[in-house]
């Protein structure tokens, strides 16, 4: 559910940003808080002391999480489709619904 485009002010590593977005302010603040926490964790680990490099490393880390979640979602989708294929023959033909198109 999208909301009218609004401006949400957030702080990331001490810097304030005004973000214009369709998402809710709670969602935007949660995203900014996650990024801020990730950058601060990288800085605290001692991997780097430069905020721009820490931001790049944070972006890499979050992108890695995104790709892993996408793969998990794709695997879950396949399992759901397999379950549907297993159940469909147990139903009368008029109650099986549309067969999903392959691919």
């Amino acid at each position: 559910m999208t909301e009218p485009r609004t401006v949400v002010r957030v702080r990331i590593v001490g810097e304030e940003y005004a973000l214009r977005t369709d998402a809710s302010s709670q969602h935007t603040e949660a995203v900014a808080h996650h990024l801020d926490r990730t950058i601060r964790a990288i800085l605290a680990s001692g991997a780097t002391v430069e905020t721009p490099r820490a931001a790049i490393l944070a972006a890499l880390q979050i992108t890695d999480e995104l790709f892993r979640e996408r793969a998990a979602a794709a695997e879950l989708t396949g399992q759901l489709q397999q379950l549907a294929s297993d159940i469909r023959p147990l139903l009368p033909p008029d109650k099986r619904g549309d067969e999903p198109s392959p691919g």
Partner: protein
Amino acid sequence: MRPDLAAFRELDALVRRLTEQMAVFRRRALTAEARVRELEHGILEARSVLTATRQELAVLTESREHALAAAREATAAARSAREALAERERMAPAADLRATLGDLPALAANSEADAELANENARLVAQLAEARVRTGRMADRVRFLRQQMMQGAER
């Protein structure tokens, strides 16, 4: 729509339809089980009545055989008495008339025994006819129950 969400909604719909089908099957199974219990009860009842009727028929048949044997004996006795009377009348109609008249009470007693045996025979024949009618009804009921069982098996 996201592929995982679409897959989930499709699976959810199928599971709901499957649940409905299982409810239908459960209702059918319960109905069939009740029908089987009803037929089993009918069979037990029919067996009980059939056994009692067979026993009663056996008793009636035995009684009929006894009655027929008694009737045959009585008929033979009556025939002997008639032959003896005819012989006496033929040999000494006047001289032995008094003696013959003296035997009349015995002959009358024989006639009463004949009538009693005839009545008993008629009663036993009536009982036998009634038993046949009841046996016929029982056979009809057993036939009906078998038909019901066959129809139940075909469902």
